[in-house]
């Protein structure tokens, strides 16, 4: 029973990691149609931010709290730069954004290697995040990430729903021309969306530094998984990404417990391909009358 519970939590926790990683993508890919392969490298930027902050502020707890907003800024600003220089001119070519951002990812990885050196670096977890919660086998870091993911997704959902900015973003997503005609600046809506999405990648990077080490290839390990979450969830709505992330997490952990880690991954990928046969539009789809 105890093992079952820990395993269930492992799945939920993996889901929360996937959600944090994929949330930004759900925004940029889901809302804007931009396939940002450099999303993983924005995470890497966030993780290195955590490393640098800890170098300056040696108190692990304080540095984590400072790193979260700074990581958001680091990822967000990189995203803003990418949007303003390259992606802006590629709205009509979504597939090409995938290639361009892959090139950007290559360059960013090499940049990290040249700045921070090839060896991985480590970020210390604060004392209040070490060990397990009370007598259970739930690690405090994982609980922290779960809470972080839930907070991030709630704030984002509220912002999209309630603020004027969110309304502008949603309008742009649903009908770009009509939004433009109604006086909404779609350029700035795009830019803000991309800033938010990339910033979320930065936050995910800071969170991941609590679980593993930080290296130039941190992002590549997660990018395929992140895209799968968005694809399974269905584009256009955050709800889909949330459900998809937690389902994939639990399914992967269950497969992994009953088989091996490698085989679990293969099974999961095959399951996803099969799932998209049944529901090519993902779990939650925007209903439209277009032929797409």
């Amino acid at each position, binding site marked *: 029973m105890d093992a079952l519970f820990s395993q269930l939590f492992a799945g939920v926790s993996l889901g929360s990691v996937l959600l944090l990683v994929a949330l930004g993508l759900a925004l940029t890919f889901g809302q804007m149609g931009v396939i940002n392969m450099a999303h993983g490298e924005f995470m890497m930027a966030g993780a290195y931010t955590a490393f640098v902050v800890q170098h300056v502020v040696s108190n692990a707890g304080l540095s984590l709290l400072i790193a979260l907003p700074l990581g958001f800024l680091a990822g967000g600003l990189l995203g803003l730069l990418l949007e303003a220089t390259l992606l802006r001119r590629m709205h009509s070519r979504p597939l090409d954004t*995938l290639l361009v951002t892959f090139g950007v990812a290559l360059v960013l990885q090499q940049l990290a290697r040249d700045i921070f050196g090839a060896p991985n670096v480590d970020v210390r977890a604060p004392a209040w995040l070490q060990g397990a919660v009370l007598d259970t086998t739930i690690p405090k870091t994982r609980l922290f990430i779960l809470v972080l993911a839930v907070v991030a997704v709630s704030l984002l959902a509220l912002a999209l729903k309630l603020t004027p900015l969110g309304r502008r973003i949603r309008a742009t997503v649903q009908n770009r021309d009509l939004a433009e005609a109604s006086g909404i600046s779609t350029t700035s809506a795009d830019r803000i969306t991309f800033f938010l999405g990339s910033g979320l990648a930065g936050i995910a990077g800071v969170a991941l530094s609590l679980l593993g080490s930080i290296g130039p290839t941190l992002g590549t390990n997660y990018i395929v998984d992140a895209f799968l979450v968005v694809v399974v969830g269905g584009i256009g709505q955050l709800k889909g990404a949330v459900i998809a992330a937690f389902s994939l997490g639990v399914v992967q952990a269950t497969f992994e417990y009953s088989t*091996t880690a490698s085989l679990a991954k293969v099974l999961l990928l095959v399951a996803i391909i099969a799932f998209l*046969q049944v529901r090519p539009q993902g779990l939650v789809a925007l209903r439209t009358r277009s032929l797409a």
Partner: protein
Amino acid sequence: MNPALKTWAGFGGAAVLLFAVAPAALSDFRLNLLAKFLCLAMVAVGIGFAWGRGGMLVLGQGVFFGLGGYLMAMHMKLADAGPGGVPDFMLLYGNGVLPGWWEPMRSPVVTVLAILVLPAALALVLGYAVFRRRVRGAYFAILSQALAAAFALLLIGQQTVTGGTNGLNGFRSFFGYDLADPLNKQTLYYICAGVLLAMVAGVRLLMNSRYGELLVAVRDQENRVRFLGYDPALIKAGAYALAACFAAVGGALFTPVAGIISPADVGVVPSISLLIGVAIGGRATLLGPVIGSIAVSWAETGLSERFPSIWTYFLGGLFIVVVAFLPNGLASLTFRRRPSPATGKQTQPATSVDLPATSGGHP
């Protein structure tokens, strides 16, 4: 000049370059290296067709490249082991029993047929299934990428029957010919060159055929093609299967040339690397993918050993600039109306192709 004549001249020039100039000018080692690049270029021809002409961003060609390569490697391993023998690595790491699905690869005929048919059939079935459900654009790209990830993981995990991360290597003979003999290595080069030329010629025929025009029509306006009574899914799956077949043949020849095939050659990153040359050369042109892919491979070998860091910046930067600003690749720079494949290295008149296509893959 008459376009047909131009095609002829371009083709002849390429043949002279590959069959006369290169073998005379290059050492055995460099020639073998070129043979390797030609194998990668075969994959590029297929990508150029499926992506440039069909608008399908195939991110997982490593799967088919790997299938071809592994099928060939299985045959060579079994041939080296002798009749009834078991490959060395199975004795070392496994229980020394040959799995049943390895058995058919003892026959050279079955192997060649399998290389030509299996990957293409897999692509046809998979492609038809997903295209019928109207999975396309980014979804298809990500799906094919996931396939590459799953394939590499599967190969790594089944060490006792696939060689795991080590892959398969240490081949001594290729259909009975000793691979240590330089003369045989040279023959292998000629085979690669011949096959590549044949593929280019084949694609050229297809591009100008009724099917080729339908494919471009599907890429640009899928719904209109459907309303005309065609089945776009079948048209696309056909192009996908052809690209898969080319990739498999490339992989099958790559294995004896490089002397190894391993999961590092089939996963997500190598699959995307295969695309880079195509994008830089010009995806929708006939020779752009070939020349782009050979040039990138060549430059990579030459530059990466001296400046690994600068090389990455250069390749990444070039890739970004080309895709963002020159969607038709460097080919679109040379001639305005008839994008020629020449990248400056080649001076003879090159093959003409149809009008430059617009960027692939509209939603």
